[in-house]
């Protein structure tokens, strides 16, 4: 099976360790993974901010770069939902008519795109990935992974199978952390108010580590934790699943 990694632009620039963890994890499970170097961004930031015509070339690039792979894995529920739910919408925009083959190319690649927990559980059929992580962990179910993708309990099943881990349930766990892409800066006060409530829940839970399937939400919550000098660390789920207990 040919698996491609779509690392997501902010992981590429800010959190390369997340992409590296995915690669390490998949190789440990016996799968090779390719990184098509022509990839850039899924276009979600532009799409959600109203610059929808600007993401037409990005959507076309995504469809072409990842055509032909059996599976495209991304460590982001948000980017996976952008590709599966909204790339067809972009392809149907009036301004996309100049590229009449776009809808077809988009529809060909979309069904092969998986968020990491979907790839592991549904495609590779594995729940116990052989990880060891002897820490207390709280899991934040991110909005796009749950509501747009419907990953359900896949991430928490993967997490529960990790050796040595103690998983803590957060109260109001389904409540948005307040990141919301450009919402975080356009409505910074509201975003921070939402985030601080999440931080309170995380800190009160006694967790050492907060994890999620989206680095973007963790960047926001982690930024608040850091500003508040909290010792709680944020880690992408991929980093925990890639861990063998030696590194940390």
């Amino acid at each position, binding site marked *: 099976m040919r698996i491609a990694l779509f690392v997501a632009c902010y992981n590429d620039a800010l959190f390369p360790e997340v992409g590296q963890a995915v690669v390490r994890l998949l190789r440990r499970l016996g799968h090779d993974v390719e990184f098509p170097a022509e990839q850039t961004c899924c276009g979600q930031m532009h799409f959600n901010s109203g610059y929808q015509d600007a993401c037409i070339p990005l959507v076309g690039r995504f469809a072409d770069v990842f055509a032909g792979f059996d599976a495209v894995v991304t460590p982001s529920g948000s980017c996976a939902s952008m590709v599966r739910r909204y790339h067809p919408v972009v392809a149907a925009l009036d301004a996309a008519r100049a590229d009449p083959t776009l809808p077809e190319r988009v529809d060909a690649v979309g069904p092969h795109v998986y968020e990491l927990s979907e790839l592991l559980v549904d495609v590779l059929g594995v729940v116990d990935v052989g990880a060891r992580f002897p820490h207390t962990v709280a899991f934040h179910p991110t909005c796009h992974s749950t*509501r747009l993708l419907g990953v359900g309990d896949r991430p928490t099943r993967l997490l529960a199978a990790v050796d040595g881990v103690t998983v803590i349930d957060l109260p109001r766990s389904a409540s948005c952390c307040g990141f919301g892409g450009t919402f975080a800066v356009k409505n910074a006060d509201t975003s921070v108010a939402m985030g601080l409530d999440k931080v309170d829940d995380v800190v009160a839970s006694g967790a050492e580590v907060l994890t999620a399937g989206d680095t973007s939400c963790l960047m926001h919550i982690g930024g608040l934790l850091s500003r508040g000098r909290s010792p709680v660390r944020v880690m992408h789920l991929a980093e925990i699943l890639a861990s063998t207990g030696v590194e940390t």
Partner: protein
Amino acid sequence: MTATNEPPVARRDRPEPTFRGTPPFPDAARAALADRQLRANLGRATTTIRTKRAAVVAERADWEELRLAGAAIKDAVLHDLPALLERLERAVTTAGGVVHWARDAAEANAIVAGIAHAAGATEIVKVKSMATQEIELNEALRLEGIDVWETDLAEMIVQLGHDLPSHILVPAIHRNRSEIRDIFIDEMGQVGRPAPAGLTDAPPELAEAARLHLREKFLRARVAVSGANFAVAETGTVVVVESEGNGRMCLTLPETLITVMGIEKLVPTWRDLEVFLQLLPRSATAERMNPYTSMWTGVTPGDGPQAFHLILLDNGRTDTLSDPTGRQALRCIRCSACLNVCPVYERTGGRAYGSVYPGPIGAILTPQLRGIAKHPVDKQTASLPFASSLCGACFDVCPVRIDIPEVLVHLRGQVVRQSEAGHRLPGREAVAFGTAAWTFRSPRRLGLAERAAGIGGRILGPRGMLRRIPGPGPIRGWFRARDLRAPARESFRAWWRRTGGGEGDRR
């Protein structure tokens, strides 16, 4: 009824407050977020109601089928609206009612005033109604010398408090019991029967004070105004759904009844009500069945109002209908479930939205009713589609499956296009997004940008976390309360190129 025996009507001397002048959402939200009492009142109320809603919805194994049916019926109405409205008009007229058509708020208000004047009324009792709030009927009638009394308990609290509603269903959700007691003591005597001496904030006492105050208004009024939750095109039946019975007092006691109804409130047949009378109470008040469901068809000699006027209100609805993505907002049955689950609404409250329609539904309905499909809108209106983190909780609970996030994003596109069309030079934001898109169109440019960011990050944040970086407002907005991970020294793509994908990491 003889006017001479009636107590004098105490005219209100202050103008009715309106939402006009509300600042754009981020600014209005900032003020609301600073109000700790408001945050506490809202947090408690929304948590209670959404927990109860989830419980009663979970009782129904066919809830998803009901939602699909509700959406399908409303879509069918929108698809065939002109013919169905004419059918409704014929049915109402046949049953002895009079149907009026109003293009906008001014026309609707003038029609109501004309009917009230003709009936010799100097005061009107009102059933809770969103459409009449939308057209600011109370203020229009006050200018015509007609007093309007809100009779829904929460609307009465808002009106007595010279306040604005902050929720579709629970307009005084931002008030707690002791605030309500103070409003009753200070204000009831100004406009009618005063609050009983020694009133406490115990709910039964507050309810009794409201009952006594309203009773004299019900018994005196000659004209009532209502909205409509539904109207059945086939039979001409109008439906009002309420919880207190005060609405039914208005709908049955006065001689003249005027109903102002948005043109999208139709259902084709009587049987279609079956779906909505299941969806609405569970979504709105977490009740299995609605307490007071009033239905009437024209007039009945010797029973209830002897004159019935139905005003069909457009006020931006056909503009909304013209937008294939945006028109799903017209399915809305005003249940408020989206407000109660919204993490933004829960923290800012409803008044920050600057409209009688707050919360997620307001963020997509208000700009459309204000004509965003046809012309550029003001800054406050343009800020509404951005007042969401796009978390999607609203879509999950919507009983008629309005994909609110989809419409929000669609409207953001309209705002951006209108802004670009209105300026000869692109603004700072457009330049930033244009530069980002240009970078993302080329992996080589992206790689160079990542290298530059990595170098910059090392200078600005030697320990890996940035506490601030220089930049315009949005960047300062991030750093007011949040740190940011510094860009990596080596991006993922650079690492992959250098190590061949970390082949050495194999284990």
